[in-house]
């Protein structure tokens, strides 16, 4: 990495700490991928934007004085924690909703509420196109994004860190807080699942 090699020539002092332009360049390079990854994880664009925004602020406020070479790891770690917190909050919220709705008896309109009336099939359940049909580039992208969102969270995390963010196994393991062995396992499972899913939907890369 360019930033690293430059920083290594400076033995000590402030000069290897991330300058404003370095932080800016890093955030600019990573923000769109981070946003997409958050969308895969939480399946909600607004929530994903909130998460990325909070992670950027946190990085700048808390770690803005760290060497530029450390920024990617710190940022992804913050993102992953933020996503996990989001899941946790969702779980607590849904628990309270079920508890409260079971505690308040006999709300008239709920009695004859038929879930089928308001049921909307989610868009990613649409019928797969017949295999072999040539697909547009944008359709391929859409299918890949849908299938990525469907992967188990840890597999998707490992796959995207390794192959989209191009971090090495050790860095991914530190970000995910697991062993290098499980990063490799998650990655290879994700690759196989993704390849199988794409094949089933008639996508050839």
């Amino acid at each position: 990495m360019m930033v690293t090699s430059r920083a290594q020539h400076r033995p000590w002092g402030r000069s290897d700490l991330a300058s404003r332009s370095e932080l800016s360049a890093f955030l600019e390079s990573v923000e769109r991928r981070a946003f997409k990854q958050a969308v895969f994880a939480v399946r909600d664009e607004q929530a994903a934007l909130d998460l990325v925004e909070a992670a950027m602020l946190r990085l700048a406020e808390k770690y803005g004085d760290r060497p530029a070479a450390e920024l990617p790891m710190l940022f992804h770690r913050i993102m992953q924690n933020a996503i996990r917190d989001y899941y946790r909050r969702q779980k607590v919220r849904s628990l309270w909703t079920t508890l409260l709705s079971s505690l308040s008896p006999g709300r008239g309109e709920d009695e004859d509420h038929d879930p089928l009336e308001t049921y909307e099939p989610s868009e990613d359940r649409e019928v797969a196109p017949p295999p072999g049909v040539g697909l547009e580039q944008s359709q391929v992208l859409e299918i890949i994004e849908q299938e990525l969102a469907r992967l188990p969270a840890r597999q998707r995390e490992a796959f995207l860190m390794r192959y989209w963010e191009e971090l090495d196994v050790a860095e991914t393991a530190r970000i995910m807080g697991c062993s290098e062995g499980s990063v490799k396992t998650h990655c290879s499972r994700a690759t196989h699942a993704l390849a199988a899913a794409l094949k089933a939907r008639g996508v050839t890369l």
Partner: protein
Amino acid sequence: MNELQFASRIRQILNQGTVSLRPEAAERLRHAREAALARQRHERAPVLVWADNVLGNGGWGWGALSARVLLPAAMLVVAAFGIYRWQETQRLAEVVEIDTQLLTDDLPIDAYLDRGFQNWLKKRAAEE
């Protein structure tokens, strides 16, 4: 296609996806980045900040050095000595009290050197 080839193909396609982001989302990301940059932390490593404070930002004057380093250091030494003296006094007082009790007891002090007496004390304690 092996895993790496597959992954690099996926990466290419995903990267295209980031180019064609919805304009609102791209704009919001840009705002977020600028807000974050405005609040970037600029502190240096704590050791450097301390060294800077100690030596004074302007120069190496002895006045600044004595006020910032020598005075707190002297206070630390005085406090440590005070604590040491106080602990020593406490310890002496305890020793004096035990000695006084032993010497003013009805039992002659030699009794504590007698093995049989010690065994008898232990046995009595066990029985009780």
